[in-house]
């Protein structure tokens, strides 16, 4: 007969494993909707069906199926997470950053502001944690940054911008101006015997500064969405290039989706906090 002490040890070990898996799982959910070309969109998981063990015990649970949410295996989600393996009470801050297409070997710096921040919650019950994961998955697809992610993934055109992310254990505060442009969504905290896990996301509420077109479409003769302009009439021919250029220069360059920048723009910051209460 199992002693209460053994049961307690088993529960603690299971909880520790759940916590340990929750951070990378959450990071994986972020990766798949914010890291271009690493997405598991439309991943049917057919390969995993044959390799999934029949037992659902946590000790042999395939990594991608934790919390009943099967996602494509993402090694990047487990990299550089030693700190959280040693102490899951450290907050995890995930910054999603919009930057100019970086040169090879470039590492994101904090100067490239984050537009999204995520904190996280976990629970001893995998199903409830899975519920948090599902909510997180849907929320990420509704935030403005997802449009950029889709654009980067779906189009074969070369873009002048890309998305990247940075994981850290400390939160750099935004300026008042930056914070005024952002909104927050808080997930319901999940309480457990080890503490309370909190997750929230701070995100840019609008991306008017981001152009969906590549920089090559900045040539005047290709601007055809000038609503209300006589130049938009398809049958009218341009008499000379100077007329076109002059007409366009007379109007302020304030296209709704125009974007000029000289540094990265944060889109979202995910803040993971595990606090003891």
């Amino acid at each position, binding site marked *: 007969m199992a002693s209460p002490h053994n049961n307690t040890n088993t529960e603690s070990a299971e909880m520790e494993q759940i916590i340990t898996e929750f951070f990378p799982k959450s990071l994986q959910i972020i990766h798949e909707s914010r890291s271009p070309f690493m997405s598991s969109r439309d991943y049917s998981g057919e390969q995993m069906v044959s390799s999934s063990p029949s037992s659902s015990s946590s000790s042999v649970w395939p990594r991608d199926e934790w919390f009943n949410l*099967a996602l494509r295996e993402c090694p990047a989600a487990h990299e550089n997470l030693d700190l959280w393996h040693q102490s899951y009470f450290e907050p995890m801050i995930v910054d999603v950053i919009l930057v100019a297409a970086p040169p090879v070997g470039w590492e994101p710096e904090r100067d490239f502001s984050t537009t999204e921040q995520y904190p996280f919650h976990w629970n001893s019950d995998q199903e409830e944690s*899975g519920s948090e994961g*599902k*909510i997180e*998955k*849907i929320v990420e*697809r*509704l935030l403005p940054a997802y*449009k950029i992610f889709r654009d980067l993934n779906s189009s074969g055109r070369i873009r002048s911008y890309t998305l990247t992310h940075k994981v850290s254990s400390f939160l750099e505060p935004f300026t008042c101006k930056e914070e005024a442009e952002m909104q927050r969504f808080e997930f*319901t905290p999940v309480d457990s015997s080890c503490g309370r896990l909190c997750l929230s996301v701070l995100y840019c509420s609008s991306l008017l500064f981001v152009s969906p077109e590549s920089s090559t479409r900045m040539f005047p003769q290709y601007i055809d969405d000038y609503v209300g302009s006589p130049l938009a009439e398809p049958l009218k021919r341009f008499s000379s290039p100077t007329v076109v250029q002059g007409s366009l220069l007379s109007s302020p360059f304030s296209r709704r989706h125009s974007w000029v920048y000289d540094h990265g723009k944060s889109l979202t910051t995910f803040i993971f906090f595990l606090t003891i209460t």
Partner: protein
Amino acid sequence: MNCEVCQLKELEVEHFEIREVLRCILHTIVFHRALGLVRPKDIDLELFNITYVQCGDVELEKKIEEKIDEFISWVEKHPNKKSQICLSFYEMKNKHYSWFNKNERLYWEQWFVNLHVTHPKAHSGKSHNSKPMVDPEETGYEDRGVRREALEVSLRDVLFQIIKFVNEKKDHVPPINEKALCFPCEITIPRSVLLILPIHVIQNKIFIKK
């Protein structure tokens, strides 16, 4: 057990938008109530710049499509009306009566999707001016664009409404049956009762045939 009810914001849609809007809303709700291992599938709407998530259950997808087909048939017979689709989650309970047992459905969560299906205004092309300043077809196109954008914003609001509800209300969710793939649910579409009485008129008096 309490039955939690969520009345979703009313959406004004045109006929051709019904299927995408309903798929998006119903699948988003069901995704949150899927049990066991879920293999999520991202679906990009064609009419709107929105991506929603399906839980990847083929049977459930088929059930939802069938109900959407039924609803569209109903709408075609009842044009320009406000309607409500109800997605209900329930538990089967065995009730003991004095001389028989009966399985009953105990509803613990109900979602009401409110749609107002409209028909686009026809542009007659007539104008009081001999020379119209703006092409009416172009005006209609712009109006439709504005309306479509407004509907996209409203649809996002509805999705956030669903997320907020699921995020905040969890105590009413019943214990999980590990063998089930999803909480049992049913989708109810509007029903209209058409009463046809065989009548004939004799000497300005109406008689109903038996």
